[in-house]
């Protein structure tokens, strides 16, 4: 059985998914800043307002807290809000609604109210944005029980995971890498495509070391792993795809198999999600390790201005040297 596929950018895959999900379920309401007439500042919501009308595709005032907060009310009314925060850095303005209200709604009402809410937000560096447009805040959200955090690394996964996110009865923070919007292209199924949330993907097999990552850093990790073949190093790459829920089983399996691991994140080093991965490895498979796990991270400074960005964001060279370091340690 061969499925029809098309080569799409991650942005096209997201846009297509929003179109097909809105057509499938008339309860879905898209809301956010510039998502209607402008089709989103990246065009992720292009064409939705023309097809589904301004009742279902709503340009809101510049009010992140009201976007997140009104999504709670829309969900209470039995609708399915898909909200966009224009850049994840501005989610700070909505943090009390996301952390204090959306994430707790099911728990504090014992499921009387079900937060079937998706919040999409672009994030991540490498495109020389103004301040607060590139910050990787995923670990901050991972410390909030009640939120699922999904971070696709391919166009195909963006479609499959966004489909599942919108249909998920729990709130999902769906984080889209700025650099991947147009920079990532791959084959995406034309038909309906959903991927269960919480399943990591082994994007490259390997025996000596595994590079564990998520979002755009998976792309870099893959390139590094491929180049290491020439050095006689067989590196696996594990794409977590979601950090909450975390696929502990796949993580444990591949780390046990390889005995060496490198974790790559764009966020600052201290209390980043890489720390959580390493703690999990300690819990699950410490005795299978042949060397201490190494982190590749941003630095413990605010996300820098454009001219310093290349020094901050992990690149292939940093990932590569981390792998070599882990291979030397016996």
């Amino acid at each position, binding site marked *: 059985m061969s499925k029809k596929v098309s080569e799409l950018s991650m942005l096209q895959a997201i846009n297509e998914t929003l179109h097909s999900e809105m057509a499938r379920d008339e309860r879905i309401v898209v809301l956010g800043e510039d998502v209607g007439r402008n089709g989103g500042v990246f065009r992720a919501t292009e064409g939705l307002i023309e097809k589904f009308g301004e009742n279902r595709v709503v340009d809101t005032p510049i*009010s992140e807290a009201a976007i997140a907060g009104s999504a709670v009310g829309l969900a209470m009314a039995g609708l399915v809000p898909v909200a966009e925060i224009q850049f994840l850095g501005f989610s700070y303005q909505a943090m009390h609604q996301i952390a204090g209200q959306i994430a707790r709604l099911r728990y504090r009402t014992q499921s009387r109210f079900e937060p079937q809410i998706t919040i999409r937000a672009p994030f991540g560096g490498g495109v020389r944005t103004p301040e607060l447009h590139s910050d990787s805040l995923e670990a901050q959200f991972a410390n909030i029980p009640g939120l699922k955090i999904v971070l696709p690394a391919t166009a195909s996964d963006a479609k499959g995971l966004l489909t599942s996110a919108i249909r998920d*009865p729990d709130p999902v923070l769906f984080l889209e890498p700025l650099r991947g919007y147009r920079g990532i292209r791959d084959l995406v199924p034309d038909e309906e495509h959903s991927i269960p949330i919480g399943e990591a993907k082994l994007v490259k097999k390997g025996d000596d070391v595994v590079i564990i990552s998520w979002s755009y850093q998976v792309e870099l990790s893959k390139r590094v792993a491929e180049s290491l073949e020439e050095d006689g190093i067989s590196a696996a790459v594990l794409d977590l795809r979601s950090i909450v829920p975390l696929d502990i089983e796949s993580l444990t399996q591949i780390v046990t198999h390889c005995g060496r691991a490198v974790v790559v994140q764009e966020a600052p080093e201290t209390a980043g999600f890489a720390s959580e991965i390493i703690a999990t490895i300690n819990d699950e498979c410490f005795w299978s390790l042949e060397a201490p796990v190494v982190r590749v991270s941003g630095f413990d400074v605010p996300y820098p201005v454009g001219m310093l960005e290349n020094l901050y964001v992990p690149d292939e060279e940093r990932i590569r040297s981390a792998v070599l370091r882990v291979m030397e340690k016996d």
Partner: protein
Amino acid sequence: MPKPNDKQLQMILEDMVVARTQAGRLWNLQRQGQVGTIAPIDGHEAAIVGAVHALETESDWALPQYREPLGLRKYGPEILDAFMLYNLGHPAGGHIPEPIKVAPSQISLGASIPHAVGLAWGMSLKDESGVVLVFFGDGASSEGDFYEAGNLAGVLKAPVIFFCINNQWAISTPTHLQTAADTFASKAEAFGIPGVTVDGNDASSVYEAVSDARNRAISGKGPTLIEATVYRLGAHTTADDPTRYVPSDDLSAAQKKDPVHTLIQDLRDRNLWSDARQSEVETAALDRIDDAFEKAKSTPLSADSLMDHCFSSDTARQSRQRSFLMDSLGEANE
């Protein structure tokens, strides 16, 4: 202008007396260490009950802050039952059963205001008739949520009523330190919606203002901000000592306008209320809250409920934590 008729006024007074009476019992239960922190309703009864009686409980939502639940009797006995569980710290206290259109108490000040806007907006998208009334205080009106949600509601013409109970105090902060605006209602101007001030000690005026706002909302004209002016006659909560900051002259002046006493006097003068009726209502109110308290205390609590309802189903990590919890309890019981 829709005024409450005599029958409605009697029902409003009954609910006010019930709320005042039960608040007294709750205060004592807290002092005995039997329930957690309580925010007394004293002084707010006419504002809360008057507003709720202007709503249609079948179609309209009420989203409380945290001082209101005893005044929401019109929505059914389930409100008090849930509230007693809530006061005990039982997780079921957050679950107000379907189809009652009331949310559980909201501790984060003003945080329910954008929920109310979203809910009202969602109802109009679904062509459901009805409005959402959200309660908050003078202090909460300084939160960003109030401004963001008020602005959004104005743009969307959402059928929502912003019901601000100005009780003159945000814990110890008086209104002149909360805002330089003449009234809280005047903040409506920036949202492009009507803002009205009513005497929150007069249930009849409150009823009228909410009825007008409701009619406006139902007919698609959008939201209204109502400021109901009252005076907090008790402490902010059981954890507060208002003698540190409330001038005693102000308090005794306010006590002369006590909303419950005022309405009792008014209805008694018109032979619509009697001492016998009063003591009958008070006795029933005490019996009712005592029953609710006993029922709450005997509601089973499982250790599982610590983990339940975070997500629709446990993550792998949560199910391990659940097993760990259960195993450790099992060991403790051995």
